[in-house]
């Protein structure tokens, strides 16, 4: 199960498990993003390389207009995945406290 929607504060709330079977839903939403955006991963439990690919594709597209994604409240397991993937150098990432 994966859900993605705008939260009350304007951030994009991602919930559940972003696996390869859920990428179509994630890509459809992120493909519409413009400008600076914050992704809130408070309730995102899991991400695989398929989800990483969508984040990278979105970040590259937004960078073309000098914008980008900030990812906040990342759990320590997903943070490890980001670190092994070198995402900490190309995204603004904040770990969950």
């Amino acid at each position, binding site marked *: 199960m994966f859900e993605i929607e705008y939260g009350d504060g304007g951030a994009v709330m991602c919930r559940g498990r972003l696996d*390869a079977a859920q990428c179509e839903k994630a890509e459809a939403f992120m493909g519409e993003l413009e400008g600076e955006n914050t992704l809130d991963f408070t309730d995102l439990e899991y991400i695989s*390389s*398929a989800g990483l690919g969508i984040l*990278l594709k979105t970040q590259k597209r937004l*960078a073309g207009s000098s914008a980008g994604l900030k990812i906040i409240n990342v759990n320590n397991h997903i943070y490890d995945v980001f670190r092994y*993937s*070198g995402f900490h150098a*190309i995204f603004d990432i904040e770990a969950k406290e």
Partner: protein
Amino acid sequence: MQREFPRHLNSLAGLYEFTEEIMKAHDLPDGIRFPVHLATEELFVNMVHYNPTVTTDIEVGIDVAEQVTVSLVDNGGVEFDVTAKREVDVDSPLEERKPGGLGLHLIQNLVDSLEYQYQDGRGEVIFTKKSGNKDV
């Protein structure tokens, strides 16, 4: 414990439930379950994507002792050595980064052992992750 899953991404939810139920029954922590789920998904998805014309189910087995051992058997698929080292660019600036290739890179960093065998159209991947549980 072993189960067969249809060769389709729609199998991922059932695959997660299957492995999660067994690992939770052994009280394995998130720090073990997360990388096992990730490696299992990446290997399963590889078998799906690299064999689009094959219709056989994929056999997945999991055993929990002092380590979690997961096996995936692909009957009829092409040979694809998941243990081979591949160049993955994780250091370049954003404009030079390309999607793809991260799955095997993550597996090779997150599991403790990874083996691959292929013979007569049968490919088998086995990986282990230390469970940290000496009592199981």
